[in-house]
């Protein structure tokens, strides 16, 4: 498609009305969810179900839907965009007309996304992220894929030429670097940290418990359970068994939750190799495609755990500057083999891995992390004091886990600083993570010393980048000072900008 097509003001694809209408309904339902659910519950509990819904309710709903449709139509008609010279210009607003113009050089990222409605009617949305304010994100909700790609290319064209100073005639080479297989996706889901989902579900249930209390009581689960097992006489034992089964069910739920979450989020994950970097696309219901540009990448972390490592699965997490929080969590690639991880790290951090010279924190690290667990144990035992004696047995698994966490935590923690890179390794008993940062992307450095560290002549160094912070824990204070001086020297003497 010819770039000149965007010079005259354009509307979105006609299907855009449907997308906006769908989003309007979604928003309306979401906002009035509480009110709606109250009405619904009242409807369920009322005796004469049919007569309590009268025509006025239908009329009201109809009017709201009609309003939302007209609103969507007007929004569509009033939404026009164009690219003139070096500016992207957007006119929108039904009553309050707004004109936004963004210089191409200020555009940070262009994403192509596809939610469920958009997938059904075969359009994509294109959002433009600018430097600075989070709120200035511009989204065009319905474009054909060809159009979106052409516009994306046009918007990003100038910058590539500016920054790389290359000839404009560079041919665009695109090849598929990696595509996740269904098998790997499932394995990733199975080897997730289910404990996290377990806690998430537990807190969620606690949150809604109060609202659903009456409803649950009306179901009389407990008494049905008792009848089923005939355990009425041994009340205490039945309570324990009941709780065990509850926990077991929750665990299965947690397992399914993290499995489904992984599959939905990373469905058809594809990594494309492009001239200016990588492009990641993924998602089942919300398809998204993100560009990964080396100069924007701030921190990169390799994450894996014992099970994943045995299965040959690694996750690469990137953080990019000037990207909003919601988008940030999508910048990751799962299911990579060790070789692929090395290849990618080598691509973004040349000569880094071979130069790693692991240096350890002081043994005080062990003491410090042990104290955390001891405090946790004391707190738990304080609670157990009021519970039946058998609860004290929970101490045994916790002690084992604490010991392993402290041991492997120390074993896995290291730092390495060379001429260009800072590498920090860490983890616990199960997880392992390794973070990489280019020295010229450091924003500020903090030397931290608690009173306890001071007595032992130790300190920690905290290093801030534009999107994350890294910590070198518990090292000798002289070493810490040297590191601070060296990092500052690197930042201040280098002409390289941080993005």
């Amino acid at each position, binding site marked *: 498609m010819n770039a000149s097509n965007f010079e005259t003001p354009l509307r979105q694809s006609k299907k855009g009305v449907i997308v906006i209408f769908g989003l309007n309904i979604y928003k309306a339902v979401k906002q009035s969810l509480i009110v709606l659910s109250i009405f619904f519950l009242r409807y369920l509990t009322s005796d004469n179900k049919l007569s309590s819904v009268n025509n006025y309710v239908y009329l009201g709903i109809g009017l709201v839907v009609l309003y939302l449709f007209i609103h969507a139509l007007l929004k569509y008609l009033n939404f026009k965009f164009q690219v003139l010279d070096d500016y992207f210009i957007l006119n929108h607003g039904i009553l309050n007309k707004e004109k936004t113009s963004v210089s191409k050089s200020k555009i940070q990222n262009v994403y192509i996304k596809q939610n469920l409605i958009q997938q059904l009617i075969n359009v994509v949305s294109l959002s433009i992220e600018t430097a600075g304010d989070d709120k200035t994100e511009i989204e065009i909700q319905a474009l054909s894929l060809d159009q979106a790609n052409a516009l994306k290319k046009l918007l990003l064209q100038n910058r590539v030429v500016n920054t790389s100073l290359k000839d404009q005639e560079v041919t665009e080479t695109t090849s598929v670097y990696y595509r996740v297989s269904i098998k790997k996706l499932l394995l990733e889901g199975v080897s997730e940290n289910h404990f996290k989902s377990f806690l998430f579900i537990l807190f969620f249930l606690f949150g809604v418990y109060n609202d659903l209390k009456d409803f649950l009581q009306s179901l009389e689960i407990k008494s049905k359970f008792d009848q089923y097992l005939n355990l009425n006489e041994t009340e205490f034992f039945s309570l324990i068994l009941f709780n065990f089964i509850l926990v077991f069910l929750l665990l299965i739920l947690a397992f399914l939750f993290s499995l489904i979450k992984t599959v939905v989020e990373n469905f058809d994950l594809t990594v494309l190799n492009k001239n200016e970097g990588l492009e990641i696309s993924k998602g089942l219901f919300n398809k998204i495609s993100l560009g990964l540009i080396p100069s924007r990448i701030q921190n990169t972390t390799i994450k894996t755990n014992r099970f994943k490592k045995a299965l040959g699965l690694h996750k690469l997490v990137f953080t990019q500057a000037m990207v909003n929080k919601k988008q940030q969590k999508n910048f990751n690639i799962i299911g990579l083999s060790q070789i692929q991880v090395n290849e990618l790290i080598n691509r973004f951090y040349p000569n880094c891995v071979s130069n790693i010279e692991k240096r350890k924190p002081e043994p005080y690290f062990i003491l410090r992390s042990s104290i955390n667990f001891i405090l946790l144990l004391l707190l738990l035992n304080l609670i157990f004091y009021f519970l039946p004696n058998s609860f004290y047995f929970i101490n045994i698994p916790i002690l084992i886990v604490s010991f392993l966490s402290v041991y492997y935590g120390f074993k896995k923690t290291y730092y390495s600083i060379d001429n260009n890179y800072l590498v920090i390794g860490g983890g616990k008993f199960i997880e392992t993570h390794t973070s990489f940062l280019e020295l010229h992307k450091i924003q500020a450095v903090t030397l931290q010393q608690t009173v306890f560290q*001071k007595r032992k002549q130790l300190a920690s160094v905290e290093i801030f*980048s534009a*999107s994350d912070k890294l910590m070198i824990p518990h090292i000798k204070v002289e070493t810490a000072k040297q590191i601070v001086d060296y990092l500052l020297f690197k930042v201040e003497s280098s002409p390289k900008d941080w993005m």
Partner: protein
Amino acid sequence: MFSNNQIEIDSLPKVEDLKLKAIDKRYFNIIIFNIIITFSSLIGVFTALRFVIKKAVYNTHVYWFLLVGLILFFLIQFIVYKLGFKMRRYAMREEDIIYTEGLLTNTTTTLPFNRIQHIEIARSFLARKMSLSTLKIYSAGESGGDLSIKGLPKEEAETINAFLTKILNERV
């Protein structure tokens, strides 16, 4: 013109050799004023509860425990702030600005000039009365690494602000 000579770590400029400057002593009054406000409003709430909760056990026991606890907590906080006040120091070098604070956990943050995004001077009502200012220096990103030097004399804050703004404008 690329050079990559070995760097002698010992020859690098050292943060620790610096003579750090203390912030204005009058800022301590503002800190104390702020904690007094917090504690007296808490005490006010507990006293008001005496009239709401008419149970004897609250008026005879719980209330006094709370009161003594609060006063003890206030005294501890006062001592920590008093001793920690001396730790609040700052300095500028050719290429960066340094701020250190904290008694129990001492942090020394250094922000290179070439990473500053923008600068801000904030002045609360009390600070205006005492002609003090808070200088906030922001780097990029949301992960922290910003400096906020509280209790600078007004002129000093403005001088630093002007100096840094000049560097920022020359940078481009």
